[in-house]
């Protein structure tokens, strides 16, 4: 008798090797942790050279973004991210890479409709829903006088 969709679904699941979760979690934790530790080190460094707290809060992400952009441009970032997974996506490095990579990729379609239009093709939803979440949070904070 012919295999049904339901039967095939379980056959396909059985035949498909799962991701190596333990290794993935370990790499994400280690590499993500190293990036955060590096960020903390930058924070100390910038504080030592006399930047104010507000300036440090801007300088650390900017440094990480610039490093990510350069590594993305050199074609190195995706090789690290392949192993790091969430370890490079979750910190600001993932956000920077998600903007730089389409900007590079779509140059061939021109500056406006290529690079310009595709720049936020990956990061766009994060910005849109991030802003939306911030508005909701702001409203809750305002209504319940949490500030």
């Amino acid at each position, binding site marked *: 008798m012919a295999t049904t969709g339901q039967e095939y679904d379980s056959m396909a699941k059985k035949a*498909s090797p799962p991701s190596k979760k333990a290794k*993935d979690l370990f790499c994400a934790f280690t590499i993500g942790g190293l990036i955060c530790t590096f960020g903390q080190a930058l924070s100390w460094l910038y504080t030592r050279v006399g930047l104010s707290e507000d300036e440090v809060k801007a300088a650390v992400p900017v440094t990480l973004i610039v490093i990510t952009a350069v590594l993305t441009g050199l074609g190195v970032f*995706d090789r690290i*991210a392949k192993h790091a*997974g969430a370890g490079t996506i979750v910190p600001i490095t993932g956000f920077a890479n998600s903007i730089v990579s389409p900007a*590079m990729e*779509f140059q061939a379609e021109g500056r406006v409709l290529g690079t310009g239009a595709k720049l936020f093709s*990956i990061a766009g939803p994060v910005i849109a829903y991030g802003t939306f979440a911030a508005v909701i949070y702001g409203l809750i904070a305002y209504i319940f006088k949490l500030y």
Partner: protein
Amino acid sequence: MAVRQGRYTLNLTTRPSIIGNAAVVGKTEGEGPLKSEFDHIYSDDTLGEISFEKAESALQREAVIRALDKAGKTPAEVDFILAGDLLNQCIGTSFGLRELNIPFLGMYGACSTMSLSLGLASVLVDTKAANVAVASTSSHFCSAERQFRQPLEYGGQRPPTAQRTATAAGASVVAASVTDKPCVEAVTFGRIMDLGVKDANNMGAAMAPAAAQTIADFLHDTGTTPQAYDLILTGDLGIVGTKLLKELLQKDYGFDLADRHADCGLLLYDTKKQDVHAGGSGCGCAGSVFNSYILRRVTAGELKRVVLVATGALMSQTSSLQGESIPAIAHAVLVSAPQTAL
């Protein structure tokens, strides 16, 4: 002259010959186990072009020119070229072949394009609608990634079931039967098959039912079993799809593939050493493996009868985003060794 055999198969009674064939590949494919088999390996995947789409066009044009050259034919002598690729509106093909001035029949069968175009080209020659017909196809890792997935430099992880789109092109020149070249004996054009797989990162699982159905149709129509062939060669089922194909053929149709099966996606790369997850995919995967390693062995008589069953996943990015499952297709072409090698 093409005679219908059984419900789905066409028996090509004049036995058109593949009088020339060529395969050109990119760097990663040229580092795989078949590196010595290809006509040319490009060390730079851009092929010196300014976009990956142009690179793919150049790749396919090169395969066609080399195949024609080996067949001793000029573009002016070709009656039809049947070709396609994975890019939207098949631009890899149309831009690559526009200078050749050959009547062009654009094919879309996703990764099944090699057997679709070869099968149709053989029917055209068999029915004398063409004296010379060319079948070609291409795919490019970078142009496929940017169309179907993420930008190349995007740092993401892919699941173990994902496959690598081959940077490769293959072309076959089909003409009236000659004794010292491989010939096409029969063609089975497949039916669209969909068992509900939605995961675009598991194409092997999506396409295995289509391959099983077409292979079973072919075997039923010809009254044979897999053991009647030296090789049943699928296009790009990879590790997962191969496993499922064998299970389905046994369970639903009662055929045991045993040692008679190989998959171009697993021949093209060393899945243990190269970072290709479940194997290769893309039109050029079957196109290049068939038009190099396989046809060389068929021509030498090492393989007497080979059934090429290239498989294609007929979804688009839009259908995937809309939550649709992946319809798949497979076409079978029976190729046999030259009479002089038998």
